[in-house]
Every structure is written in C-alpha cells, then in structure tokens.
C-alpha cells in the first residue's frame, strides 16, 4: 500500500516536471515590446557559472545580478506561489543571498553565522549538513547596525565567508567540515566583519566593518586553498599601508601626492580614521582589476578631523595579484554626513557621447549616481538619482561635489533637515542590470535626517560616532520612505520609479524574461516589468525584506525565485512606523503555482487504523 502511494507520488512529481516546461512554450510572445535598449549598455557576465546556478552574491564578476533564465515570464509571474520555506531561527537582519551550486542551496544565517546545505532534489528544505562556526558573542554588541552578514562566496568546492568576530572561514561544500579559518582582526577593538567574501582570480577578498567604531579600514586577499593572507590594503595611513606606489594614477590632481592617507588628516588621527570595506567587490577579468568602496571617516563628527580624510568614502581599483592601487576616487571628500562610499560598482560598457566607454556605475550614498571610466577613474556622469540638499552641484573639473555650507554640521547645533540621512538614499543594497533594457534597477530611500553632532572621544571598542539623528520622509509625515527606480546609466537619468511606503533595502535581480524582483522593508516581495515598471506580482512575506533575491533552476528543471525575509540592519530606523513587521528569519522559495520536487521519501504518511472508504 505504501509502495503504491510512493509510486503515485513519483508519477505526480514526474508529471509536474514535464508540465513545467509547457507554460514557457505556450507563453505568447506578443507582449514583448521590440524596444531598443535605453542606454546601449552591456556587461561581460563573466564568472556567472551555469545559467541555472547562482554561485556568487552578484551572480557574476560585473555585479549585474542578471539571470539568463526565462521560464518565469511576464505572463506566468502572476502565478508564483510559495514552493517551500526555510527558517534559520536567528533574529538579526538577513541581508545575504543564498547560493545555488548544482542541486544544493547553501544558506548562511546572520549571527551566529550558521551555514546550511539544503538538498534541492528533495521536497522542502532537506538539510544535507549544518556548520556552526561558534563566533564570539562579543561581536553582537560591536556591530553598528545589527549582527548581519551580506552573504558568502563559493569557490573550488568551498564556501567562504566572514564571521562577525573577524574570522574568515572556509567550509567544504560537500561535507560541511571546516577547511581553514583565518583571524583577520580583533573584535574587542570594535572591528566586525559583515561583508560578503568575494572570490576572483584564485583569491578571496574580504574587508572589515566598523566605520562607526574608529577602526582602521582594510581589504585583504586570502588564498582560496589555505586562507593565508596574501596582501592587505588599508584605506587610511601611509602609502605603504594603502598599497600605493608609482603605478597609482588617480584621474584628479588633488588625489595625487605622497601619503595622502596621512596628510589629509590631523596629526596621527588616521589610525582611527575608518574607511572600512563592507560592500560588494567587482572584478574586471580582462584588465584584471578589482573595484570596491570604502566607508565613512571616523569620527563621524567632521569638526574633529579637518581635511579631505583620504581614502575614506572612496573607491579603489586594485590589482588583485599584488593589491597595488591602480586608481582611487573619493566620492565625498571630508564626508560630514556618514555618506560611505562602500556601495558596489556595476561594470558596464556603454556608449557615452557616441564613444564606447568601459565604465563602472556606482550609486553612492551621497545620492549621486556616478558613471566612471573604470580604467582611469574619470567621472563621466554624476547625477542625483533621488532627492538631496547637501550638495548644490558637481564640479566636473575637479571631480568634487559642491557642498552647501549651511548644511555642514557644527557640534551641538541642530540641523533640522539634511537629505539624505547617514544611510544615504541608497545603502549597500545592490542593484540589478538588464542588458535588454540597458537599465539599472535600484532600491532607494526617500528620507532625510535631523542631525545634532556631539564631539566624541575615541574609546576602544565603543562607537566613535557623535551623530544624534532622527529620520523622516522627504515628503513629510505621510510621505513615502522609498522606491524602486530604473536608471539609464549612459544618460544619467531616471526612466521610471515605483514609489513604496517603506524603504526598499533589498537586492534587485533581473531576468532574461524582462522581469525584475525586489522586496520592501514592510515585507512585500514584488515582480515588475523591466521595461515599464508595472508591478506584475506581489506577495506579502512574514517580515521585511532586506535580503537579496536569487533565481535558479532546480534539479527538477523548474525555475525558482528565492529571497530571505528577515528585517534588520539600517531598515530598523523605521521600526516605530505603523505597518512595520517584526524580525523574521525565513527564506521563501517561489515557483509557478508553487510546484516543487516530490519524492517517494516525502510521501505523506497514511493514518494507521483508518477505515478504508469503499
């Protein structure tokens, strides 16, 4: 009898596998507008793995978060339903993307940074193995903005990630056994690690967090096989520490000179000058260059650190082999409002003024969207992608934003309205790029802050902060706090925007079927038309979404979309607003009609002793 049932279940499963391809085939093509790309931008998509896989946070080296999958179309997306869920039971913000390699999904939780391998060939979350790295609880209270992790990396059969207590650990993907563990810094000094490790060129790149704690920021390269440190480049300090030599060629004159990481600070203050690196790293395989940003300077009170404070709130292009900087560019000199430069660079090639340029596109927290020549560091375009009032314009000669002196904070003097606030109009949440539309899709905020600065002591292990803030919508008490916008990076303009009541702090993905997926911090997970921004499907999840969605093909050949719902991090600035959901810890996996793998082992048990119906 049981055997019979199992056979029936298997038949059903096979049937559904066969059925899955039919919607894609039957989907009418008529709605696909034969439009030309808005910007003409393309990307290389190198490092992306198999089409059905999602093997790194951004899926590819260029940071596009574009999937070539097209089973879920604009027609079928409305039928998406939950196929299965997985809860990791932790209570901090879920900011990472799960990875899918082969028929396994790999999930890492926020603190205590527990790793799971889930077998996708079985129904629901079938745990293959679990790895508990046991990081120090001290790290919880040293992380400025929740005990989060922004994902992890897969390389050479290993999963590599950062523990909140400043260790980088590699786990065997097949067995879940620790391969190596390297201590990177000292958590007692306030250094934590929340960044997603990034693998390219046989190395794993990891950076620290703690821009609010007066740390000394760095990015380091470790050997994938052994975890041995190959080089470490600081964001502050003498050229030797920053790994700058004669080959360093910044585009703008004011960033040229010796030991600028020392001379643009009051004497010896660079030691606690921050410039941490906790954003996503990009890699250009052709020129062999990595790109990453650095955080705000410390302390956050600008009066205590006159000077440009290089190389904080900046971006570096480096040689991954040696770590030597090729060029650097500071987005916000003498950053006075905590506008870190950590946000990612999306590497795109596009025609600008009729000339094909190799660029990187960077949405800075300071609300400028930069299109920068990624070989020279020249700013080609700098336009506001959302509302700001701290800068009155951009000087393309010097590459410096022009600051409104009225909004420069002074200790103990309240500024009523500075836009954007410390977390920017876009924080670390990564955008997606679609080569079809040529647009970038980015979750943004629509907020301002009231700001009072207090002069602050450096006390090791406590915040080196001094900013007392409140945040509110740009548009008044009833205004929206966020949105999702489509950005043309070749012309520096917004094409459309989906307004949202709450901040959009999730990652965005784009698919070959011209869909984009994103989540809101009040728990809506949405799919929209990449051309028009029309919302085609929405589902309210159990907690706010700050995770990064992924899409993948299961071993059953179905396309799935997955995202973690577990609000936390900077999104908690809204926690007092009505409608804000409590914390959560669930990964939701969606498929058309919620169909998923069914195996004999998962057959529902039959009640014993039940009377059989005739």
């Amino acid at each position, binding site marked *: 009898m049981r055997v019979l049932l199992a056979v029936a279940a298997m038949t059903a499963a096979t049937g559904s596998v066969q059925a899955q391809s039919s919607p894609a085939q039957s989907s009418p093509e008529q709605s696909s507008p034969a439009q030309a790309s808005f910007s003409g931008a393309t990307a290389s998509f190198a490092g992306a793995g198999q089409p059905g896989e999602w093997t790194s946070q951004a899926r590819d080296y260029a940071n596009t978060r574009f999937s070539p999958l097209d089973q879920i179309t604009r027609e079928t997306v409305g039928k998406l339903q939950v196929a299965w869920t997985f809860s990791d039971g932790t209570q901090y913000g879920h900011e990472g993307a799960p990875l899918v390699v082969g028929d396994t999904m790999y999930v890492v939780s926020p603190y205590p940074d527990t790793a799971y391998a889930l077998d996708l060939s079985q129904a629901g979350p079938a745990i293959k193995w679990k790895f508990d790295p046991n990081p120090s609880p001290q790290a919880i209270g040293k992380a400025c903005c929740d005990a989060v992790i922004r994902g992890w990396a897969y390389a050479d059969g290993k999963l590599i990630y950062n523990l909140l207590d400043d260790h980088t650990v590699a786990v065997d993907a097949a067995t879940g056994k620790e391969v190596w563990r390297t201590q990177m810094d000292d958590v007692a000094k306030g250094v934590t690690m929340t960044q997603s490790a990034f693998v390219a060129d046989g190395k794993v790149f990891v950076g620290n967090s703690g821009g609010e704690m007066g740390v000394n920021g760095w990015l380091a390269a470790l050997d994938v096989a052994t975890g041995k440190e190959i080089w470490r480049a600081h964001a502050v300090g003498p050229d030797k520490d920053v790994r700058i030599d004669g080959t360093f060629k910044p585009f703008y004159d004011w960033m040229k000179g010796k030991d600028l990481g020392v001379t643009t600070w009051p004497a010896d203050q660079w030691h*606690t000058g921050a410039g941490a690196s906790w954003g996503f790293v990009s890699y250009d395989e052709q020129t062999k260059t990595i790109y990453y940003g650095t955080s705000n300077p410390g302390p956050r009170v600008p009066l205590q650190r006159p000077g440009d404070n290089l190389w904080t709130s900046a971006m570096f292009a480096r040689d991954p082999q040696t770590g030597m900087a090729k060029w650097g560019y500071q987005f916000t000199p003498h950053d006075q409002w905590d506008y870190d430069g950590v946000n990612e660079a999306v590497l795109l090639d596009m025609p600008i003024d009729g000339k094909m340029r190799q660029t990187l596109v960077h949405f800075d927290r300071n609300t400028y969207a930069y299109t920068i020549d990624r070989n020279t560091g020249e700013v080609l375009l700098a336009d506001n992608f959302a509302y700001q009032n701290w800068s009155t314009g951009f000087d393309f000669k010097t590459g410096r934003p022009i600051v409104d002196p009225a909004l420069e904070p002074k200790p103990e003097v309240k500024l009523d309205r500075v836009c954007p606030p410390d977390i920017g109009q876009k924080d670390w949440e990564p955008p997606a790029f679609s080569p079809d539309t040529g647009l970038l899709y980015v979750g943004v905020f629509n907020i301002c802050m009231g700001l009072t600065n207090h*002069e602050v002591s450096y006390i090791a292990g406590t915040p080196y902060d001094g900013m007392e803030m409140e945040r509110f919508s740009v548009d008044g008490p009833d205004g929206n706090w966020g949105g999702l916008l489509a950005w043309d990076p070749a012309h520096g303009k917004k094409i459309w925007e989906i307004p949202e009541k709450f901040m959009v702090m999730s990652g965005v993905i784009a698919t070959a079927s011209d869909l984009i997926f994103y989540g809101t911090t009040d728990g809506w997970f949405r799919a929209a038309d990449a051309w028009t921004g029309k919302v085609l499907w929405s589902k309210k999840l159990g907690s706010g979404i700050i995770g990064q969605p992924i899409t993948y093909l299961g071993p059953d050949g179905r396309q799935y979309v997955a995202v973690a719902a577990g609000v936390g991090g900077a999104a908690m600035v809204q926690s007092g607003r009505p409608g804000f959901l409590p914390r959560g810890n669930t990964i939701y996996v969606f498929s058309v009609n919620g169909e998923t793998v069914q195996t004999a082992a998962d057959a529902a048990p039959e009640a014993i002793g039940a009377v059989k119906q005739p």
Partner: protein
Amino acid sequence: MRSAVPLGFAAFSLAGCSSSPLGYLDATGPVGGPIARLGWGLIAISAGVCIVVGILLVIALWRGQRHADLEIKTVDDTAAIRWIGVGVAISTVFLIGAAVWTLVTVRQIRQPASATALSLDVTGQDWWWAVKYRGADPAQDFTTANQLVIPVDVPVQINLRSRDVIHSFWVPKLGGKMDMIPSRTNVTWLQADKIGDYRGQCGEFCGLDHAFMAFDVRVLSKPDYAAWLDRQLLPAAVSAGEPGFKTFMVRCAVCHTIRGTPAGGILGPDLSHFAERETIAAGLLPNTPDNLVNWINNTQTLKPGAKMPELHMLAAETRDVAAFLEGLK
C-alpha cells in the same frame, strides 16, 4: 609732603606688580607694550590730578584758616565760577585725552601689523586649557594643553572658545584679557618680542578652581620653535610593552589622548608630549615625576572639584603611569 606717603606706597605696589609673573606694567611687545604704556600714562595722569587737586586743597584749607569767620555768604563771585569753569575745562581736556589715547591703543592692538602666520584655538574649560595648533594642511593640526609655545616676533592669532562657563584668556605680559564665551569664538592675538617663559591665567571667575586655571607661554626663537613643532608632530614615543602604557590604556585612556596609540579621550588634556610641559594640572605644580604621582593620587586634595577623578590606583600602577608619561618627550 603728606601726599608723598600714599604715592610712594602706590609706586611700591606697582613695582611689585611688574616684577611678578602676572605683572602687566613692564610688558613689551606689540600688544602688551601699548597696554603697559597706556597703563603707566593713565596712572601718571591720575597721579598728577591727585597731586594738583591735593595741593589746591591744601592751599584752600590754608587760606580758609586765615578768614575764620563762619558766616555763609551767597556766592556772587564771578571769579569763583570762572575757577570752576577752568577746572572743568582742564579735566575735560585730560579725560578726553585719556579717552582718545585709550581708543587709539585699542585700535592699535586690535589687529597685528602683519597678517598672522600662526593661528591657535584655545578652549577654556573647568579648569584647564586645550590648545589646538592649526597648520597649513590638516596633517599639521595637533592639540596640546595648558601651554602655548609660540615663536618670537610673530603675531599669533588666538581663537577663544569655552566648553562650559565664561573664562577669560589673559597673558598679562603679552596682551590684554579676552573673554571666552560658550558657543561663540572670540579672536585675539599675541606677539612676543622677547624669548622667555610667560604665565597666563584665567581672568574671569569660573568656579572653585578658578585660581588654579593657569597656563604657560613659552616664547622660542624661530628655529627652536620649528624644532619644537616638528617634535610635536611626531606621534608619541611609546613602547607598547611597558607596564605604564598598559595601565594608562586601561585606566586613563577614556579621558586622555596620546596620539598614535588607542588612547583617544577628549575630556582631559592631550598628553601626547606630556614630558616637555613645564607644569601639570594647569599651572598648579612643576612637572616632576614626584608631583605627577602626587597629582594622580591626590587630585581632589590638590585641586578640589577638578574633573579628573581619583582612581585609587595601586602604588605600582601610579609609579608606572608616571614613568610612562614622563617619558613622552
């Protein structure tokens, strides 16, 4: 003859004043000099007026004794009224002269003759002085405490602030007083024309330890000053292994800064180059190891109400910390 006694007494006290560290009547230099000259001048005028009035009074009394009748006559003597007029006129001339002189002096010392090459921020607080040097580029910015070191013959702009109550910045031998008002910046300047050590003092009552809120001004030759500046710009010479360093980091670092180390507190004075300071506790004690141990152990006895608490450190800890600090050249 009788007026010679108070006059002599005044002269004596003035002389005593000028030989003391806070005496302002023998000041020289472009700010102190005119003020001292004005002071002497006003004293001379006042003394002259006193002498003249005294002599006239004596004469009047002498003459009055000869006409000893007590009958009160109505004054219809135009000559007497003329005398009053003459007196008023003479007074007016002297008063206006003194006022003009004062205004001219104030104007003269308001701004230095040449642009100031050096600008310092001095922040008063209960009961000590933070001194921030501002260089041409930020890397030459550093902070010290209770001590101004300035080059000779260079006008120095001083930006005055207060962190709590009203204080007043006063280096009697080099310049006038200027109040330090919370939440605003007052600007004054100094210029010394002689190498040497001078003393400054809070000139506005600011609480319990007002009298113990002093500072030193060291005027150096230009090469000496440049050398001092270079030494200051170096990070503190510490070896992280010494016991005093460790104790300092645990006990003292939340309030005091030592540049280049994890000690970054801003509540107390920056101690990066503590050993080269003349005094400790805002001019209270000469900077010697014994005094430092005494100060750490008995802060509240030596300077009651000072913000620095007594931590009741072990004798060995205090000794280690004192040795460590006295090594910070």
